[in-house]
Each structure stands twice: as C-alpha cells, then as structure tokens.
C-alpha cells in the first residue's frame, strides 16, 4: 500500500510539475545566461516551431534524412553560424570570440561546460534536442511496463514494477531539469512532444503483449540504454553528465529485475519458457536498433549524419560510434542469453575468433525509420495516452495552485 501511495505522488509530480511558460530565470538553471553573455547565446529563446529531425535513442542522436534541418543547424551547416556578428556591435564581437575561445579551451581540456558558460549556439541547440528527446523517451518509456502494473503475477512483481516505472518518471524529470539549464522551459518541451515535433526512442512504439515482455524490456531495453548512457556520464555538458550518473545508478536494478523475470520463466513450465522465448524474439532486433543506424556506410542515415556525429564527438557529447556500442551490447548480451537458455533470433550470430567479437546480422533499418516516423504498432497510442494523462492531471495542478494560494493568504493573515 505504501508503495502505491508513493507511486501516486510521483505520477503527480510528472503530470503536475510541468509549469511555467515563461523562462524562469534561475541562476543555477542558467536561463539568465541568455541575457548576460553577449552574442554567443541568443537573445531570443528557441521558438516552439522548431521541428526536430532526429530520433532520440537514449544517448545518441539520429538524423532523419527526410526532414529539413532546423534554422540553427542550417546556418551552421552552411558555415554562416555567426549569429554572434549579426547580434553584436564590433566591440562585443571581440568579447564573443574570446568567450568561444574559452569554450574551445574547456572542451580541449576535457573540462565540463556549465550552464552559465558561453557556448556556441549549435552546441546549445544540439544538447536541448538530445536531452529533451532523452527525457521524452524516459516518460513515454513508462507506458509499455505501466501497462502491466495491474496484471503483475505477484505482489512482489507489482511492487518492483511500480518502483521501476517510478524511476523512469524520475529519469525524465532529471533530464527535463538538465534541459532547462540551457534556457528552455519544460512545458515547451512537453508541448513539442505532444505535438509530434520532438520524438522519443522508437523502442517504446512496440507493444508489451505478455508478462515476459517486462522481462525482455528490463534485460534488453534497459541493458541497451545503460550501454548508451554510461559514456554520457562523461558528457561535456555538466548538468547532463550529472543527470546521467544518477540515472545509471538506478538502471542496473532495472536490468537485473528484467533478467530475473526471464530467469524465473525459463525455469518454469514449458509454456512459460515459450513465453520468454517469444518475448526475446520480438525485443532483440528493436533493442539493437536503439543504438541508431551505422555512423558510416550504406545504411548510414544520410549525408548530414556523419558530420553531425563527428561534431558531437568533437564536442564531447558523444563518446562512441553507434556500431561500437551495438557490438559491445551484443558481446555482453549473448552469454547472458546462453545462461538464460534463450535463442536470440539471428541466424548470423556466431563467435568470431579473429575479431574477438560476436558477428551478427543486419538490423532492418527500413523498419527503424518507418517506426521512428510514426508508423509503428503503438505510436499514436503512446502520444494519445501521454496527452490524456496530462489533461487528466489538470485538476491536480489546479488543486495544488489553490492550496498554495490559500496557504499564502493564511500566512499573511497570521503575520498581520
């Protein structure tokens, strides 16, 4: 009962805690920076009309070649990223150049960039998009498993699942908080999610059809997320890196509880084993796709993706290539599957003595792009559910406002 009450509180936070259209100029949140650093950061905050063209995959940034670049990136891609010059009188231009040199020096020294430091506009935009879509992935990621809370097979499993889903809500909030340090309001980010202007990881557009899917998600999806998120603990942007440290600490419980669900099923009846195998069959390939398309080669996302990846690496936002992380994940997971007694659904999977790695087949990237662009089994459902949860929480937010106003009035009266 206690657990359920706790859960309710955090769901309340999630739905309630997204206030403030205007930017709250929190010093620590860095929002005030927009006004104090001449030229380097924009005078105006990004409009809600910016369409994101990437899919957030829990720690990497995937360009959809079919969508246009947004204004900030267009300028940078054309080498005309001198908002500095157009914004500033000559004296300030010099100051801005000094600020950018300071930024470059920090990056070169592998130091962290903090909210109020000067930073190139494209660095800021890249981070806002990446962190926001990471945050969206966390809160949309509550749904596939949230779907099973009322049907968990035991009280123990139910309590664990509630705690896990609650953690994902927390991960979303850490990340929205980090994004806000870049001068954008969480409410605006949520609107971009609701309006389909920003995406979340494709993996959550697949349904959880059986109880075993909760095991496969914890083991494979959280496992892949960890692989992506651990390098982000060293991301050059301080608030993002700190949020990731917090997240990674919590993820290992997620992965282990998933493994334990499958471990239990695999030692159960024949039909329980079949259920576990079926879940592994359906989640294996989408989990591999979570690392994003190859950074280079035929299957790479498009002409811009290579340079985008390169830039993110140069800025210390991205530390490993997608294929590198995917290989690490396969190498880590295959022995675990063997231990479980599960067969991974890839006929090309075999140990390569020479490479010292597991060889594996090709992810279906056509399916990946299809699902990312909206044509997955659950895309519409996920967003509709998210929007309804937000709408249904309106009365809670209003009640909190009324209570705060009343308490304030009482405090004033007793002071008088």
């Amino acid at each position, binding site marked *: 009962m206690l657990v359920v009450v706790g859960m309710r509180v955090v769901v309340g936070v999630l739905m309630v*805690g997204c206030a403030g259209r205007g930017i709250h100029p929190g010093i620590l949140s860095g929002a005030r920076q927009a006004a*104090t650093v001449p030229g380097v950061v924009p005078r105006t905050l990004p409009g809600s009309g910016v369409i994101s063209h990437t899919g957030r995959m829990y720690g990497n940034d995937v360009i959809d070649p079919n969508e246009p670049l947004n204004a900030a990136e267009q300028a940078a891609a054309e080498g005309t990223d001198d908002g500095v010059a157009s914004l500033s009188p000559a004296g300030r231009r010099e100051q801005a150049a000094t600020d950018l040199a300071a930024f470059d020096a920090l990056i070169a020294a592998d130091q962290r960039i903090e909210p109020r430091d000067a930073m190139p506009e494209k660095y800021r935009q890249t981070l806002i998009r990446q962190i926001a879509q990471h945050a969206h992935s966390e809160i949309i990621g509550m749904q596939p498993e949230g779907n099973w809370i009322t049907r968990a097979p035991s009280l123990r499993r139910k309590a664990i699942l509630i705690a896990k889903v609650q953690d994902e809500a927390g991960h979303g909030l850490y990340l929205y908080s980090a994004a806000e340090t870049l001068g954008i309001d969480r409410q605006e980010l949520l609107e971009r999610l609701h309006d389909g202007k920003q995406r979340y990881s494709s993996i959550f557009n697949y349904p959880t059809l059986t109880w075993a899917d909760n095991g496969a998600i914890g083991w494979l999806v959280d496992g892949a997320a960890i692989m992506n998120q651990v390098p982000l603990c060293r991301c050059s942007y301080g608030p993002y890196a700190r949020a990731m440290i917090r997240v990674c600490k919590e993820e290992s419980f997620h992965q282990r509880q998933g493994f334990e669900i499958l471990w239990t099923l695999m030692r159960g009846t024949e039909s329980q084993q079949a259920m576990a195998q079926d879940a592994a069959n359906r989640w294996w390939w989408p989990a591999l796709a979570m690392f994003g398309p190859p950074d280079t080669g035929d299957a790479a996302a498009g002409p811009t993706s290579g340079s985008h990846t390169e830039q993110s690496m140069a800025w210390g936002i991205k530390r490993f290539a997608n294929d590198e992380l995917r290989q690490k994940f396969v190498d880590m997971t295959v022995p675990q599957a063997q231990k479980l007694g599960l067969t991974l659904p890839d006929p090309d999977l075999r140990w390569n003595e020479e490479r010292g790695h597991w060889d594996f087949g090709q992810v279906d990237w056509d399916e990946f792009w299809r699902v990312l662009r909206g044509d997955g089994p659950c895309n519409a459902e996920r967003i509709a559910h998210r929007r309804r949860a937000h*709408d249904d929480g309106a009365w809670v937010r209003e009640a909190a406002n009324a209570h705060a106003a009343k308490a304030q009035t009482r405090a004033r009266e007793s002071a008088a």
Partner: protein
Amino acid sequence: MSEGSTRISDGSPTPTTPAERSWPLWEVFVRGKRGLSHVHVGSLHAPDAEMALRNGRDVYTRRQEGVSLWVVRADDITASSPDEKDSFFDPAADKIYRHPTFYDVPDDVEYL
C-alpha cells in the same frame, strides 16, 4: 496489437491553463548524510515550498540519498557572473602567502 489499458484521445490540442505555467522553479539541495553539506542536485517546478519539498523528496531521494532537503526559489539566488569571472576571482591569485607551502621553514622541524 493494442494494449488493453490504453485509451485513445480525440487528438485535440492539450489545453494549458495560465495558472499551469506560473509555477516557479526551485533548486533542490540534499544533505547526503550527517556531517556533509547540502549539495545541489537539480531543480523542479512547484506551486509552493511545501510541494517543492515533497516533490524533491520523490524525485531526488528515492533510495535514501538524503537526510535533509533544501528547496530554494531559483529567482532568489544571486550568482557571480561568468562575464567577470577573471576580475572577480583575480584578487586570490596573487596572494599565495595564504597557502602554507609559501613559507620556508627548516625540514627537520616536526608538526609544522
């Protein structure tokens, strides 16, 4: 392929009341254990300090990460400006005599 518990809304734009946007930002500080200072852990939005504390507990201390919590209105924090970070912190740079290593003392004197 639909999941049982999920309903579909009509897709109309999510209404957002003015009040909903007015919640202030709070910075959250946690004392990890007795003997340590409070450390900044992140921020959240809440209508008042009490809700900020409760939400701060749920967001930042789900695994006993803290024994004490502060929430501070972000607006109420005054910070030094990165613009003047050199001039602001400069005075400390040329006062190396504030460090014990500045002083020449014989090597064989103990407890100094």
